[in-house]
């Protein structure tokens, strides 16, 4: 079933773990996830650089990837988080020469949870983007727009049962893709 994104990404993960994956395929599957996480934490030029660093270091360190501990997207996001935090710390060290110590300590306390939360959001947004159109639309209406299932049925013209089963299937897919992170 090549059209099923889950099947495709699982076989890509397996190929990557075995050292047979084409890096371009890995980048096509996960470049957007890594880049958008970087874009939300860093300035545009640094985001480009860090995205590049993440894929280069992931490729060089691909022997460290263990599919039993999570999927490839999660592994790449883990590397991305560390790189972002390294960059933020290094920027702060430079800023620290000009700023007072209180500002420095406060910024250090807040950066890592913020990057974690951004990473969670990007993982969810990325899986959501890969859902079939109708499932993505109803999930968006239910959780981002905060509409009830009844309201969604009325606005889309879909039967209420279809709305519920679309949402359930979408949630199942999201859980499948994210479960290792949040088990």
């Amino acid at each position: 079933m090549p059209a099923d994104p889950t099947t495709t990404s699982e076989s890509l993960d397996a190929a990557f773990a075995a050292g047979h994956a084409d890096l371009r395929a890995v980048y096509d599957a996960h470049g957007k996830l890594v880049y958008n996480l970087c874009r939300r934490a860093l300035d545009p030029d640094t985001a480009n650089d860090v995205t590049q660093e993440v894929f280069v270091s992931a490729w060089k360190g691909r022997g460290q990837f263990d599919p039993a501990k999570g999927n490839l997207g999660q592994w790449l996001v883990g590397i991305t988080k560390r790189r972002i935090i390294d960059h933020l710390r290094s920027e702060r060290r430079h800023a620290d020469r000009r700023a007072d110590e209180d500002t420095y300590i406060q910024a250090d306390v807040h950066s890592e949870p913020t990057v974690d939360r951004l990473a969670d959001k990007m993982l969810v947004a990325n899986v959501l983007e890969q859902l079939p159109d109708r499932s993505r639309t109803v999930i968006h209406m239910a959780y981002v727009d905060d509409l009830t299932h009844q309201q969604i049925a009325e606005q889309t013209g879909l039967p209420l049962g279809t709305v519920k089963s679309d949402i359930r299937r979408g949630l199942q897919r999201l859980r499948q893709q994210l479960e290792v992170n949040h088990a």
Partner: protein
Amino acid sequence: MPDDSTFEPEFGDIETMLRDLDPTDLELETPPDSVWEGIAAQLALDEPQTVGGGATVVAAPFGRRRSWMLPLSAAAAVILVVAAGVFAVTSSPSSSELASADLAFAPGFDPAGESAAASAVLVDDDGTEFIRIDDDALPFDAEDDASLELWLIEADADGNVVDLVSLGDIDPDPDGDRTFAVPAGYDPAVFTVVDISIEPHDGDATHSGRSILRGALA
């Protein structure tokens, strides 16, 4: 929130994460083409190219490096200065051994290296530099259809790999030659880290990421 719009507790975590999303979180941009071009360019630099009898050819003039690496040059300069100092102290007319490194296993390495040991010596033989592997207890039999390969790595101040070059496979024969020429263009004062990795015979010339031992020349 009416009851019919939640599937708790089965999907509780997922629903919480979805509710945390803002519409702007869903606007995912495609990275600019320059990002992939940079990745491809940089990894091509790291692939040693072999010709003829397997001599390693270096095709990586420094000018081709990615611009983002420039900030690392300060760290590299520090390593260079420190290493140059060590070399000055250790090299003397009576000794051709310029520096040495105890190679050690570290967490995150391939488990095959757990009880392995070796040391590396940088030797100057009439102006030509070699790395010699001494006192080795190396796991040549850890895996079928794989070799142990020797690398020199340039690391930044945080220990991250900036660049690396293969010196070749290590001969499993205990009486075999354990001396490796340092490829032209790769200064051991910059490429200070000696690394041994397990390399499956899979046709991929890049580092497998499965290091077993590593140490810094000093």
